[in-house]
């Protein structure tokens, strides 16, 4: 990589706000402090949390509020304590930052770039974050908040760059060579496009391909649950599917009802009624385009697949597979999901595949779920979380330890004295 070449590549610097700049200028970063979980970096994230939660526009966006809460001091301190425990558990290891991290953020969930960056920043790295060029209001506001914060925070401003550029392999190639760790969000296409670009022989990489998520519900537990639980589940399911038009990787598309066939109808009726009530309670109205999208998808599917569609449903469309039909992994989005039945959890283990990420669940014991995770094994499923937590960010994502990724493990052993 040469500076001359980098000076011909132009990117749009968004935070610190800087307009169009040459990549060479952008990469002239201040030396980092190199100390993971430093007090100043924790302080910066706590400040960021406050700014997000006080921004009128972001406060209206549920996913930004969740981000603001995740960044608050108590949670960062919790991560910090985990980091200390990690150190204590490995007395022969010194954890240092990976160095320079290049993040490519996904286009569907505006907040992901902040999570990815924040963990890396906490770990003491320099960061270049490429965000989507199609800026939504939420994305612009988050970048605005970061930009403002940088004005009074030289450590933040010195070592972090949030930028965007049109698809340009030369820029991605230069940033890849610059980095010591590359994180590719954005699904199969982005991974395929960028993975071909070489990294430094010493660099590492984490990629997040396109994923499929589903939901498992015990019919007996669901029918046995009280109204309050049912309402809470409906509220949680609503969040799981409607926050990002059901296009987040962890939003469920298939609902597997586990139990006996003769209880399936009453369970589905209860579920649909509770969801309709929740939609009503929130006064949620999707766009007519979303409703048309679901309709087109369901009709097209029904031409070739044996299933049942209920056109009376509002704001969502539940498609039901007949007994014994093969489960499918199609993604429609915008509130379409498919019901299927399983006699027991082992059928889910057999279904598990490499694309499977999140299984949201209700009505199973920890032991049952752990057994299921083990049985699905290497083939699939990265996380089992309760209904309502599909979109909750975790430092373990797609089965990988993100904090571990952002650190290098230096062995320090002394000879016996």
């Amino acid at each position, binding site marked *: 990589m040469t500076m001359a070449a980098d000076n011909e590549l132009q990117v749009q610097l968004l935070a610190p706000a800087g307009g169009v700049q040459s990549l060479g200028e952008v990469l002239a970063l201040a030396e980092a402090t190199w100390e993971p979980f430093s007090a100043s970096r924790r302080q910066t994230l706590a400040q960021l949390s406050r700014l997000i939660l006080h921004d009128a526009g972001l406060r209206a966006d549920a996913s930004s509020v969740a981000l603001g809460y995740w960044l608050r001091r108590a949670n960062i301190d919790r991560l910090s304590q985990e980091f200390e425990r990690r150190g204590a558990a490995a007395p022969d290891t010194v954890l240092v930052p990976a160095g320079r991290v290049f993040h490519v953020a*996904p*286009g569907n969930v505006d907040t992901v770039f902040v999570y990815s960056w924040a963990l890396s920043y906490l770990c003491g790295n320099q960061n270049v974050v490429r965000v989507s060029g199609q800026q939504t209001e939420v994305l612009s506001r988050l970048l605005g908040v970061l930009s403002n914060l940088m004005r009074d925070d030289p450590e933040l401003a010195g070592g972090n760059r949030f930028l965007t550029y049109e*698809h340009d392999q030369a820029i991605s190639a230069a940033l890849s060579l610059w980095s010591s760790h590359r994180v590719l969000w954005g699904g199969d296409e982005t991974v395929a496009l960028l993975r071909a670009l070489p990294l430094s022989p010493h660099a590492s990489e984490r990629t997040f391909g396109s994923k499929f998520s589903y939901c498992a519900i015990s019919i007996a537990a669901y029918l046995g649950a009280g109204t309050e639980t049912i309402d809470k589940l409906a509220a949680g399911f609503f969040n799981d599917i409607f926050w990002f038009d059901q*296009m987040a990787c962890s939003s469920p598309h298939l609902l597997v009802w586990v139990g006996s066939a003769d209880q399936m109808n009453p369970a589905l009726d209860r579920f649909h009624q509770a969801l309709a009530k929740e939609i009503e309670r929130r006064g949620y109205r999707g766009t*007519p385009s979303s409703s*048309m999208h679901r309709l087109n998808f369901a*009709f097209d599917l029904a*031409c070739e697949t044996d299933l049942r569609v209920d056109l009376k449903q509002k704001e969502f469309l539940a498609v039901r597979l007949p007994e014994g039909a093969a489960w499918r992994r199609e993604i429609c*989005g915008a509130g379409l999901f498919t019901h299927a039945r399983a006699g027991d959890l082992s059928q889910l283990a057999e279904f598990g595949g490499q694309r499977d990420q999140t299984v949201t669940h209700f009505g199973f014991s920890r032991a049952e779920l752990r057994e299921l995770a083990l049985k699905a094994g290497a083939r699939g499923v990265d996380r089992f979380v309760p209904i309502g937590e599909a979109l909750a960010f975790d430092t373990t994502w797609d089965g990988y330890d993100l904090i571990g990724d952002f650190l290098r493990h230096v062995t320090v052993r002394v000879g016996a004295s």
Partner: protein
Amino acid sequence: MNASPSLEKLLAAAPYSLPQKEKRAILADRTRELTQRHYERCEPYRNLVDRVFGGARALQFARLEDAPFVPVSLFKTRELRSVGPGEVVKTITSSGTSGQAVSRIYLDAGTAQLQSRTLVKIMQHFLGVARRPMVFLDHSAVVRDRQSSSARGAAILGMLPFGRQPFYALREDMTLDLEGLEKYLEGTRGQPPVFFGFTFMVWQYFVEILEKLNRRLSLPGAVLLHSGGWKKLEALQVSPEEFRRRLLAAAGIESVINYYGMAEQVGSVYFENPLHFLHASIYSDVIIRDTNTLEPLPPGRAGLIQLVSALPASYPGHSLLTEDLGVLEGSDNPATGMNGQYFRILGRLPKAELRGCSDTFQKPVPAPA
């Protein structure tokens, strides 16, 4: 296909003669007949009726509003055909405006003939029985290659039989051949011509050019038929009223008739009535549905347009849910001199903008031609 008393009734009447209630009853009979026919002969359609509309009992609807319908996009993703491949005499393809996938509509001889018969009747209602000189506000190259399936070319080919001595008023570079046009009009003097063109092209390559050249034509008795939607003119803030006013001023055309139709239901088109609303002939009707609940809506309320046509016998396109928004404006109004319902189009539903995680680096999408 077998004799159909309901279809015979429709074909025996003039296109705007039957009062709404009477027409609706006949059309419901015909729609039941067609629904049954397609259910028996088109497997994907049978699957839809069984899986989405509750099975064979859905064939026994009393009201037209309760007839099964098919979203128009399905003709882009599925081969929907109720006759054997050998019986297909013509396949209409249409990209609509969205540009990507193409609809395929399979016509057998019977359906193609029905379409022509009803189209003639509708056209004659507005243009008279005698064939008139016809001026296309387009260039001849769009029809030169009859294999090419451009929507513009197809529309012109569909119009050709209704006129005579076709003249193409644009050169291939889209400039107006004013000299040629004036010569043509001189040669056909005394026979009021029919002009035909796409709404936006009529505006950009005819009206605006005449205005710019400060030339005025005098075309007493001429009729302009135009179609293609108002979207581009809306962007220029040109209302239908202004469109008509300036056509009159620049070209002297008093009779300007917009029409609405789709490749999926050729033959039962909707022409503008004297109140400037789109009017259903007896061969078809309009149902407006709530965009959210799909419930049928009364006049005055905006919703999705469903089009029911008595003609499609070789493909299950007799009851289509479009992605256009519209509102019913009235029915059997003496002021229009026509029976039946009329409506207004409010635009097209935008495509759902669902952001996949993979659109991180979107490849630039070329604008549709």
